[in-house]
């Protein structure tokens, strides 16, 4: 229940590589495209404007040939330490697609932290709550529920 209440996904991994390489891998498109995405997926496109307020637009290509774009803004860029950005499904031009069309939470707030010790680097990715999107997508539902609730109350 705790996990669902936070609505947070957190994944951590320690890599046998220096901090600088991990930072590069996450922030330079030519490197980012080489690893980003689950097994069988590739990242054929990637644009990163690495600064607070800067935009990113990348895509993933599924094993069955579906290309899905996502875009967002960097909220925090602390070199070698932390990245905080939003990530929303979009079209190829970077226009955000609503969750209704995509059938998934529209926007994620992603935090990536980098910690260095003994030549190894630990990277932690955290989606802090689907709050932005679930509530956004959920807003329509809650309004519908309220309408429904009042209609039902009147009916009773």
């Amino acid at each position, binding site marked *: 229940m705790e996990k*669902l209440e936070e609505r947070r*996904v957190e994944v951590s991994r320690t*890599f046998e590589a220096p901090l600088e390489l991990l930072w590069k891998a996450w922030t330079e498109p030519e490197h980012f495209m080489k690893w*980003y995405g689950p097994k069988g997926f590739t990242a054929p496109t990637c644009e990163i404007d690495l600064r607070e307020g800067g935009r990113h637009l990348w895509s993933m290509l599924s094993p069955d040939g579906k290309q899905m774009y996502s875009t967002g803004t960097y909220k925090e860029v602390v070199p070698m330490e932390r990245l905080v950005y939003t990530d929303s499904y979009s079209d190829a031009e970077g226009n955000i697609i609503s969750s209704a069309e995509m059938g998934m939470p529209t926007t994620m707030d992603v935090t990536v932290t980098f910690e260095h010790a003994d030549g190894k680097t630990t990277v932690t990715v955290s989606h802090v709550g689907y709050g932005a999107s679930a509530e956004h*997508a959920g807003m329509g*539902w809650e309004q519908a529920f309220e309408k429904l609730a009042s209609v039902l109350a009147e009916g009773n």
Partner: protein
Amino acid sequence: MTTDTLSLTFSALGDPTRRQILARLANGELSVTQLAEPFKMTMPAVSKHLKVLERAGLIVRGRKAQWRPAKLQAAPLREAADWMEQYRQNWEESFDKLDAYLKTMQNEKNKSAD
């Protein structure tokens, strides 16, 4: 699980009062009166929350007219958790690929250093 149900589940869980209601129902079914008590909420307010939870399939209401206890349904919660599990797995797989790529990066670095 359909994506509509998933949205309903997430939005039902998006309210702290509803989460508290669910947590209490995890210990057994309760009536609206019993649920309202600690929140010092009106019964219509609690009923509103229960309707949201029922719509998301998170609770079922008993049928007796005078006393309709709410009972927790675990399935949608489990399925929502599975969905978050999918995200976790996606990241783990991305990290596997990152791990492999870092080795390539380091080999390249070592080569050019020669």
